[in-house]
């Protein structure tokens, strides 16, 4: 009887109460001078429903949830070990199976089939549009940033710049900008793809060659600045970019080869298939890249730059390469978005956007292609769900509170991400034990 009131239990109970109180404050209505405790008590105009059973004040709900959490926590301490061994056993067999090639290919085919059938299963127009604009495009962007952050271990906070370059290039090539299209010809959007990729890659190299000599934090600051510069350019160069109004006359993709004629239009499904094709191409390309000598050189630089140099790897060259590949992927995503939405304006290319993509990569698992794809799908679907069917009291700007909390929790319990890359997982494990050389992204400078 006495043990129940032991300090560990009390501590746990208070931790649960505190955590839920913070959550309640986070999600609650803003307080005011007249009602400073509104965050806890809930305003009288908006009483929360107690699990849908009856209407009550918010703090009652949260007190109940805190008690449930305390109960679960205590139960975990008692039976956790058993549960963990049982799960490990249950998981290990399928995990071992996925290492074999036929199983992996089989899974890829199933995933592909689901991806292709998805627009027929989900017919809600909101979700069909979201699948292209908010999920497939973000998967592309996450794949690109993964090359920079995950493979090469460089922190890029200005990823949006290359996306903007891709989008504006599309507008330029198709003649939608105030400035004249190249050679006065309004090209088809498909021609914008190589040009956008080349321009984004070129600007990646121009930015990367001098700045990738910097380490860790400095690189992050420089890329952050670059992202801002591009946005400000887009905003202020009225005669070239159309200023803050941007443009809304970008044509759709169209195909006209011999007898085949096809025009992508306002409906999202054809765009979905187009994007899926490119996503598959990028995934295949990056998978091969990861297991090539280039991928190994990146790993070597990430783990120990000095040792990598001693075996003849030029770190600067490989970092610039990673940067350029990431940039061109973003440029490509820019083409898809610009063509699909017909509109671009500078205010959509913000720092928040860069950070959003970084969150997808970190959440999914830096360096793991499966991870970042899954991470992008999970987070983007989640935020779209909150936008589509917001729970009581939810406001769009609350999204980042939840994302932030999610990341904090992830970093504590699963620091290598949702589906960690095997190498990265080991690196983080080694770094925690104080062995090996921890990554620059995580520690800043490692001389």
């Amino acid at each position, binding site marked *: 009887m006495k043990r129940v009131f032991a300090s560990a239990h009390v501590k746990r109970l208070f931790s649960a109460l505190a955590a839920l109180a913070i959550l309640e404050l986070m999600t609650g209505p803003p307080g005011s001078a007249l009602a400073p405790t509104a965050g806890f008590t809930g305003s009288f105009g908006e009483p929360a429903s107690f699990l849908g059973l009856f209407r009550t004040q918010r703090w009652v709900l949260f007190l109940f949830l805190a008690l449930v959490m305390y109960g679960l926590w205590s139960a975990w301490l008692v039976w956790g070990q058993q549960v963990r061994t049982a799960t490990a056993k249950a998981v290990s067999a399928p995990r071992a199976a996925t290492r074999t090639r036929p199983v992996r290919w089989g899974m890829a085919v199933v995933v592909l089939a689901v991806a292709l059938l998805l627009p027929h299963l989900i017919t809600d127009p909101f979700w069909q549009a979201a699948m292209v604009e908010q999920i497939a495009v973000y998967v592309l962007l996450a794949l690109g940033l993964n090359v920079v952050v995950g493979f090469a271990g460089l922190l890029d906070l200005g990823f949006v710049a290359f996306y903007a370059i891709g989008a504006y290039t599309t507008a330029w090539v198709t003649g939608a900008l105030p400035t004249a299209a190249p050679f006065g010809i309004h090209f088809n959007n498909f021609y914008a793809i190589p040009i956008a990729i080349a321009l984004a890659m070129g600007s990646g190299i121009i930015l990367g060659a001098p700045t990738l000599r910097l380490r860790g934090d400095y690189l992050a600051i420089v890329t952050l600045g670059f992202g801002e510069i591009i946005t400000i350019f887009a905003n202020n160069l009225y005669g070239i970019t159309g200023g803050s109004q941007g443009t809304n006359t970008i044509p759709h993709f169209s195909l006209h080869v011999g007898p085949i004629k096809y025009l992508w239009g306002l409906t999202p499904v054809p765009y979905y298939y187009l994007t899926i094709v490119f996503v598959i191409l990028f995934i295949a390309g990056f998978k091969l890249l990861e297991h*090539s000598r280039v991928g190994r050189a990146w*790993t070597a630089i990430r783990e120990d730059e000095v040792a990598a140099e001693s*075996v003849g790897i030029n770190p600067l060259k490989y970092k610039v390469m990673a940067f350029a590949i990431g940039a061109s992927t973003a440029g490509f995503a820019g083409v898809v978005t610009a063509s699909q939405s017909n509109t671009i304006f500078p205010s959509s290319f913000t720092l928040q956007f860069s950070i959003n993509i970084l969150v997808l990569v970190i959440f999914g698992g830096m360096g793991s292609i499966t991870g970042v794809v899954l991470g992008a799908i999970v987070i983007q679907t989640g935020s779209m769900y909150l936008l589509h069917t917001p729970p009581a009291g939810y406001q769009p700007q609350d999204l980042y509170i939840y994302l932030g909390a999610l990341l904090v929790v992830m970093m504590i319990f699963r620091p290598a991400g949702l589906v960690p890359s095997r190498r990265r997982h*080991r690196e983080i494990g080694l770094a925690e034990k104080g062995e090996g050389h921890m990554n620059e992204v995580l520690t800043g400078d490692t001389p």
Partner: protein
Amino acid sequence: MSDKIFDVDHVTLRFGGVVSLNDVTLHQERGEILAVIGPNGAGKTSLFNSLTGVYQPQEGTITFQGSDAKAMSVIGKKPHRVSSAGVARTFQASRMFSALTAFENIKIGAESHRGIGVLGAMLRGPKTRRDERTSDERTVELLDFVGLRAKANVISSSLSYGDRRRLEIARGLATGPQVLLLDEPAAGTNPSEKLELTTLIRKVRDQMGVSILLIEHDMKLVMSLAERLYVLNFGSVIAQGTPEEIRANDKVIEAYLGSTATETGDRS
């Protein structure tokens, strides 16, 4: 004409006011096992870092002469350039790619890092596949050579100290060097591992024809292995010669044991 693989001429390296190498002149013959010894802080590792392009000495010249009879000045070159010219090295605190397997560690060394290779990797053309096969074969050869074949798929951070040292040597050899610089290879190894290491180092020279430049504190290992030695103290060369000559040199004994010591003896 002697065939010098390394010719270090009046090299001075300073860090602000601290003189790390003071007017160092030394050379290494091709095919020689040369050792550099000296008390802690004598500048041995600074010398290694200058030879591999990590540090840039302010004065003097360092000339590396590869087998193709083209002399190269090391000073001003980046480490990766020096490495591709044919200088391999290991590190004092072994620096493996710890999260990779032994096989992958060596393979990274065996691969060419010239060109871009991105498109080749994405398309996996015949040349890429051929290169891949060549570096795989070379890796297996080297794993056999250093006796780590059975541990090819072990993550390098879980290897023993002795194995890590051998792996690092194999990784250096994978780059196809003319000379291998070993920075305290025997540190942290037990006596039987030391013996194996001595055999391995000699085998590298005899079978692969790679010259060896060695820094080591273990006098027994140095004296049995080296054909010639340089002694550094406070950044200057204070003695050179065969192991016998060094053993009898008063200046060396003074540097190691202090000037008041009159008893002679090795620190072995």
